[in-house]
């Protein structure tokens, strides 16, 4: 128990030195740490938002929305496919969407098979080997075709939508110029956004809360304004609210959508008022040119998120693939819109379901208070240990200090985040880590009382206590892991420190102390132990 081969001694010392090296940058200022020679570790522990200040937002997409959007686009596709079916357009009536199903009646039953054939081609196979498709096509009651979205199909579209949403959010936040945002998906339909140093998240939320779906649609000039006012929609058209109030009838089909947009900037209109310029890619530009050519003299509507921003007249064909959006913008709101348009539309609307914002003062206060508490805790525990166990208490304190540094080192090199509860975990570990030493020392005391010699007491003390220490700590690790898996946010940060602390404390309190004790016994050969 007290024999240490040379390689073991060196690996223990090596581990400690390595740990201390990794912990060291945390005691320097950020500048000093950055200017360290490159062969030295210079990673500091990353602080959680509760310590450095910043905003944490959890966004959630409504899965019903994804389902609905998908069904709507399916309806569009079905309409156009049937119109362009092989062997001439297929007539249908009573097309409707409800409960995740799209149903329609084929008027000419002789074309039923052709219709089913056509619509089957619309469906896509899902990834994977199941052979399932995203939409099932069935015939009921002789002439009614029902298209049902499969659960797998919906899950896949949600997955796609979320992946795309993460990208869009990343672009939008980068545009804000904030540093090191963390954007991660959580679960099936959530995204967690963490932006350190951000005090007022309202600008961020304003950017994240908008879908920014831009469409250009022709205004339905044949619609009777009185009918529109009463909400009666002409066929093939839809009624959309105008930004300045009122409503307008526009063609259902968009001539072009924002997907083809490649750039958008703040600019000025002819009167010098802020406006937003946009530019389409080449296909988009061609389509826009064609549409404006065919409709000179007619108004078209610029629709953002289902609201008509403006409905200018097409005075001449717009051939260059670019233009400006006029409206009552300030420079700031024009810039916001430009960012939104540049970053593309969110495939799904996101709602903030959880928000935590911490001011930088509070974070700094917490760090200071935490550091003081940790220092006082080390001091108090050290005094207790030294008063109780004398020389063995000093050894325990050495182990304790190494332990704290090792925890900091592991957290730095492992890229773990220190949170406020993590600081509490550190302080708790300070109090609990000496338990192993208490166990060992009390065992040694007992063995001494039984009249064993110095070496034998220490041997038995370490041996018997080690078994107990392993039992107790493996249980603690289990609890910490459960905490890590099921805990959210603050609990996770606490569990991380606790787990690291348990592992390092077994090393320092048992192995390191045993090494020190063995060296001392070999050198001093004490006749009696004062413990």
């Amino acid at each position, binding site marked *: 128990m007290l024999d240490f081969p040379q390689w073991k001694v060196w690996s223990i010392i090596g581990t400690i030195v390595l740990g201390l090296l990794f912990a060291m940058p945390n005691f320097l200022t950020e500048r000093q740490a950055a200017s360290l020679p490159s062969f030295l570790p210079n990673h500091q522990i990353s602080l959680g938002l509760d310590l450095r200040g910043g905003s944490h937002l959890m966004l959630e997409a409504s899965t019903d929305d994804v389902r609905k959007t998908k069904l709507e686009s399916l309806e569009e596709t079905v309409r156009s496919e049937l119109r362009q079916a092989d062997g001439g357009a297929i007539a249908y009536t009573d097309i409707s969407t409800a409960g995740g199903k799209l149903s329609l009646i084929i008027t000419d039953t002789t074309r039923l098979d052709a219709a089913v054939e056509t619509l089957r081609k619309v469906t896509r196979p899902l990834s994977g080997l199941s052979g399932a498709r995203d939409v099932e096509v069935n015939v009921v009651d002789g002439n009614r075709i029902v298209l049902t979205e499969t659960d797998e199909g919906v899950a896949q579209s949600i997955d796609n939508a979320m992946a795309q949403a993460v990208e869009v959010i990343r672009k939008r936040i980068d545009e804000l110029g904030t540093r090191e945002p963390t954007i991660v998906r959580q679960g099936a339909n959530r995204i967690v956004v963490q932006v350190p140093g951000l005090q007022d998240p309202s600008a961020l939320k304003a950017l994240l*809360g908008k879908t920014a779906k831009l469409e250009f649609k022709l205004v339905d000039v044949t619609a009777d304004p009185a009918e529109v006012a009463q909400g009666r929609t002409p066929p093939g058209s839809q009624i959309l609210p105008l930004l300045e109030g009122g409503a307008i009838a526009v063609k259902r089909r968009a001539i072009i959508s924002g997907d083809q947009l490649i750039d958008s900037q703040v600019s000025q209109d002819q009167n010098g008022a802020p406006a937003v310029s946009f530019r389409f890619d080449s296909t988009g530009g061609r389509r826009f040119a064609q549409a404006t050519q065919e409709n000179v003299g007619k108004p078209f509507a610029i629709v953002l998120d289902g609201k008509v921003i403006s409905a200018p007249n097409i005075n001449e064909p717009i051939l260059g693939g670019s233009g400006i959006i006029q409206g009552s913008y300030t420079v700031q709101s024009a810039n916001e819109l430009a960012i939104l348009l540049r970053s593309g539309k969110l495939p799904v609307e996101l709602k903030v379901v*959880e928000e935590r914002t911490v001011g930088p003062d509070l974070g700094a206060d917490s760090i200071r208070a935490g550091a003081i*508490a940790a220092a006082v805790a080390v001091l108090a525990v050290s005094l*207790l240990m030294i008063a109780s166990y004398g020389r063995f208490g000093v050894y325990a304190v050495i182990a304790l200090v190494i332990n704290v540094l090792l925890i900091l080192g592991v957290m730095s090199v492992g890229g773990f985040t220190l949170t406020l509860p993590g600081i509490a975990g550190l302080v708790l570990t300070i109090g609990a880590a000496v338990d192993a030493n208490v166990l060992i020392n*009390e065992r040694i005391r007992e063995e001494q009382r039984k009249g064993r010699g110095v070496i034998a007491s220490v041997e038995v003390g370490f041996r018997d206590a080690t078994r107990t220490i392993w039992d107790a700590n493996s249980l603690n690790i289990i609890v910490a892991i*459960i905490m890590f898996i099921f805990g959210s946010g603050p609990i996770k940060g606490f569990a991380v420190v606790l787990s690291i602390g348990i592992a390092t404390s077994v090393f320092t309190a048992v192995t390191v102390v045993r090494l020190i004790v063995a060296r001392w016994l070999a050198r001093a050969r004490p006749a009696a132990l004062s413990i």
Partner: protein
Amino acid sequence: MPLKLVPDNTNIGFVRVRFIAFALTVLLTLGSIGLLATKGLNLGVDFVGGLTMEVEFAQPPALDKLRVKVDSLGVGTSALQEFGSPRNILIRLPLPEGDQAAVQKVVAKVQSGLKADYGAVKFRRTESVSGKVSGELIEKGILAVVLSMAAVAVFTWFRFEWFFGVSTVVALVHDVIVTLGFFALTQLEFDLNVVAAILTIIGYSLNDKVVIDDRIRENLRKYRTMDIGPIIDLSVNETLPRTVMTSVTVLAALMAMLLLGPDVIFGFTAAMVLGIIVGTYSSIFVSAALLISLGVKSRAAPVVEQNAERVVRRKA
């Protein structure tokens, strides 16, 4: 002369007083359940949803005046609470109906309202949690506590014997319920952090019990002819210095945290302090003595035979 919190060779009859301890335990548990049923927990926004803002004022504001002010903003009924110092006030508001824009409006209203009346105020933190998320957080919290208890039971069962598992879990349930009762009594805010504290209490209290159980098992092997009562007493007494010393060091560290540490985690630290005290009590007086009531016998129950007997009984 080294400091000894517990004198050498104590011989306290813990087993003899076990019925008093059991009665006290039952009383504490029932009292806590009663408090939970009548007063309930002061659940934070993590668990009920809502909006919290911590505001720092230049001068300590009069709470009743501040309440009238906030309530006049038309953002729902507020609950105010001093937080750490009289200048820091925690404002709790119900989550408004509607989407995030509604939350943003409430935050803006409170901010401008307070700035108008109090001048320089600092908004130190804002938290809003929707009802859906808070429901999930409750579920996850309960799941974590229940799972760690189950893991403990299984581990102690395999590592020791089933009766150690039972006595440990009974004592742990007691520790958790009494801690919850403390939160019902003091009406300290019960948030996610406190759940972490409870999990830690489980882990720590377990530590104590494992150390004692370890010693009981060792002594059961060593003194085959001794009765279970004296063995338990001997084991608890032998480990008493360690139990007390460790509790004291942990409490010393936690007290530093409680008195000097950040205010945000006051409840969290308070829960742990109480949990350590309760856990130490239940380790010394309850869990070990419970083994007798579970019918553990010394001579009839060396480890191997106990196992064999269990297998036979199961088959029958």
